[in-house]
């Protein structure tokens, strides 16, 4: 099998990107629209129609309850975690979800889990990359917030599988950003990456030495980002409207979306101007208008931004460093464009007083994807550009098991370099007991109920022995993706114990299997299929143009040979269009294009001469105000 490229993907809360290493530097792969960003928005107006990215935006106004955005905030979470924010989303949860169960969204008649929604975004990125390379793409490095827990990471991996992408590595976003920056010049020393994105906040502190990127400490909040700023502004606007016009629009999703759009525009504008205006038309025909100064804006968002302070302080403490020992600060994520965020990071790390400035040279929206591409390149085997570069990341949260009385016994501390492992011994409490249950949690609190439940492992098939006699050795291993693996064996019998895993908020393997949109085996075939469809469309377009050409006066200026040649190739192409031979189809299309080139020129000439003579051919009125028409009637078809 041909070696396929590994791409780097930033699966963001607000925007997603795909990048790859071109020569010595990573570049973002644009979509068909020529844009680098694919908004993480998925519209499903009916179960057979899924629209991703910018084209999904119009549906926010039309069918807001069938558009999903910020799905990343729902990954690996339970219904009890998302009560508050779900109220602000225009889409709805399925009515029958139980606590501890994976979330399901009710979109029209269908239900979708967050990994399925993310899979649609990944599929779009995969498509963009395949279009760019002209070859299938099946492997990727995908970034996740450093502070994502096991369930959130697993959900991301599941999304990859559903989308037909093998995720070779999950890389933490701030670490990826450090990689992108580290490529630029040989840096040594302590670097702090402050990553405030659309939905999540991460702080990572790294030590860079001889190409090794060793993460020393990381911290964050997976529910803190630009979305929270938007939600705050939306709430204020709704309150205003309620107060001034006595209109309660909180339950009107269309108005909420219109306000959302307006506050996001105002927020972005306030990063560069001192004042901005909100202007929203309300259903009663009235308008809500408000001027907002940067000063007011900063006052409003200060409490949100202050929440980044605690994680920064904790990360420094865990790294045993003072702010003054941090050599460089890198700002990542769209929200770090806000001037107040820059002032805040300056305060936290005492930058200005040390004559330093945070690094913002790389586009904060793209730097994570670029870093993912660097890591993808390293996994491919690397080159001179990445030689000696090695990333040593950590697990953001302590791993523990629930002990007697609901207390957590920590077995792998947070900020341990991954892969990391721990071995624990368990025994039975009753004679002949055949099963032992282990509850694994993640978090820093002392009681299991205050931590994140990851899974319940049921050790089965323990040979019958007196209580306390079996010695079951359980190995907990966190891999380089930050995902937990558990294996066990009964030491006295040497028997591998059978483990049944019940993920608390995840999908089972079987569920993922049934959701897989495009399995790996079919990726190549699918790609071929898509190319065939595109080539057929193109052939159809050119054939239709030839058909129309017969009535054009220019047609009669061709020689008999030329017309015969065109007819012959047209016929051949009509046949090939119905077949499966992609190469022959493309060759014939090209041949027909070539054969009709002189006709196109002739037609151009006659069009130009008629234009000079004063619009005799066409009705002048229709043409007015329009730009030049396409010079070649057989320009390649636009593939939708």
């Amino acid at each position, binding site marked *: 099998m041909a070696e396929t490229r590994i791409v780097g993907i930033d699966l963001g809360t607000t925007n997603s990107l795909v990048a790859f290493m071109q020569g010595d530097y990573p570049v973002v792969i644009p979509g068909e629209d020529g844009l680098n960003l694919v908004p993480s928005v998925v519209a499903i107006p009916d179960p057979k129609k899924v629209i991703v990215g910018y084209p999904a935006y119009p549906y926010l106004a039309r069918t807001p309850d069938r558009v999903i955005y910020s799905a990343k905030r729902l990954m690996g979470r339970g219904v009890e975690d998302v009560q508050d924010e779900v109220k602000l989303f225009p889409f709805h949860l399925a009515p029958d979800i139980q606590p501890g169960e994976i979330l399901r969204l009710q979109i029209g008649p269908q239900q979708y889990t967050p990994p399925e929604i993310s899979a649609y975004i990944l599929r779009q990125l995969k498509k963009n990359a395949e279009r760019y390379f002209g070859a299938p793409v099946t492997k990727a490095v995908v970034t996740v917030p450093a502070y994502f827990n096991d369930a959130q990471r697993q959900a991301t991996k599941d999304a990859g599988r559903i989308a037909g992408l093998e995720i070779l590595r999950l890389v933490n976003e701030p670490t990826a950003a450090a990689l992108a920056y580290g490529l630029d010049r040989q840096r040594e020393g302590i670097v702090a990456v402050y990553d405030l994105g659309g939905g999540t906040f991460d702080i990572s502190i790294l030590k860079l030495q001889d190409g090794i990127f060793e993460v020393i400490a990381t911290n964050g909040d997976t529910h803190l980002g630009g979305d929270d700023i938007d939600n705050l502004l939306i709430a204020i606007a709704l309150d205003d409207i309620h107060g001034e016009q006595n209109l309660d629009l909180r339950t009107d999703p269309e108005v909420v979306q219109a306000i959302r759009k307006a506050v996001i525009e105002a927020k972005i504008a306030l990063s560069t101007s001192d004042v901005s205006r909100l202007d929203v038309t309300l259903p009663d025909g009235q308008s809500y208008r408000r001027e907002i100064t940067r000063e007011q804006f900063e006052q409003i968002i200060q409490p949100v931004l202050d929440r980044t302070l605690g994680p920064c302080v904790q990360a420094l403490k865990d790294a045993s460093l003072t702010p003054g020992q941090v050599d460089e600060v890198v700002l990542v994520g769209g929200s770090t464009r806000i001037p107040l965020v820059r002032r805040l990071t300056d305060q936290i790390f005492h930058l200005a007083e040390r004559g330093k400035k945070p690094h913002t040279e790389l586009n904060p929206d793209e730097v994570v994807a670029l870093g993912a591409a660097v890591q993808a390149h390293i*996994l*491919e085997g690397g080159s001179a550009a990445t030689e*000696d570069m090695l990333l*040593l990341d950590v697990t953001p949260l302590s791993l523990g098991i629930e002990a007697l009385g609901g207390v957590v*016994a*920590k077995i792998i501390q947070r900020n341990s370099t991954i892969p*990391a492992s721990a071995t624990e011994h368990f025994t039975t409490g009753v004679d002949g007991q055949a099963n032992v249950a282990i509850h694994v949690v993640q978090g820093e609190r002392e009681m299991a109920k205050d931590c994140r439940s990851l899974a319940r492992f049921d050790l089965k098939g323990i040979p019958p022995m007196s209580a306390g006699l079996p010695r079951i050795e359980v190995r907990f291993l966190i*891999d380089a993706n930050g995902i937990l693996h558990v294996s066990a064996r009964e030491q006295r019998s*040497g028997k591998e114990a059978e483990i049944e895993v019940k993920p608390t908020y995840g999908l089972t393997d079987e569920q993922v299997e049934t959701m897989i949109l495009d399995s790996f085996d079919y990726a190549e075939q699918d790609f071929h299929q898509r190319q065939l469809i595109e080539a057929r469309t193109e052939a159809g377009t050119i054939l239709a143009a030839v058909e129309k050409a017969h009535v054009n006066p220019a047609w009669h200026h061709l020689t008999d040979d030329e017309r015969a040649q065109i007819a012959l190739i047209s016929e051949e192409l009509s046949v090939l269009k119905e077949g499966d031979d992609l190469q022959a189809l493309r060759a014939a299309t090209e041949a027909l294009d070539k054969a009709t080139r002189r006709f196109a020129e002739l037609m151009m000439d006659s069009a130009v001469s008629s234009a000079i003579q004063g619009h005799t051919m066409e009705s002048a009125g229709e043409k007015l105000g329009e730009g030049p028409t396409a010079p070649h009637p057989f320009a390649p078809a636009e593939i939708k």
Partner: protein
Amino acid sequence: MHTAEPQSVTAACWSCGASLPAAQPFCPQCGKVQAPLDGVDYFAVFGLPRKLNIDLPALERSFYRLSRKLHPDLYAQATPQEQQWSLDQTSLLNDAYRTLKNPVVRTEYLLKLEGIVLEAGKSDDGISKESRVPADLLEEVFELNMQLEEMSMNRKMGEDDPALRTDLEKARIEFESQLGAVDSNLQTLWTRWDAAIDDNSDTTKIKDETVALLDRRRYIRNLVRDVNEALET
């Protein structure tokens, strides 16, 4: 399943057939990762003797050097078997580095290798409070607990007592210096331990003293943490 001493194992590289030095995680000839062996201790991972004084910069250099040979990133395109070995070898390396770079955890680990079970669990789980009060600290600890209680009462009432704060600051300095003293005693014990290993002499007494000192350290460290918590909030 064999449980032979790793030192006695001689093996050949699965890939190129070169003979492997004891507990070597990768082949010195072809560089390929090898199957992990059972029973390799954290000192052996770095080729170190079971001694307590460790040159930390050298340990870090070894850690980086071995990471560059074993890390899963280098085996992303390799066979599933090699990927598994790389994962196992790297997690062993990381666990070993994490344990040895922290002096207290390193000491506890060595005691565990010597078959000693420490009371109140691990030093770093943050919840062990069951240690006995060291006799010479009884009076000070009693006073400190009174002050901490008063402090928490004040907090509940929303009051601030500057005099109490000053007392606690003093206590913090006092116990932090106690902690420093324990650490320097610990260093002396390390040196004695290392010397005893060199001359092959009896280590029982050093072990007992180390266990007692670690208990004392844990107790004082918890006190320092409690005082810090009270002062911070």
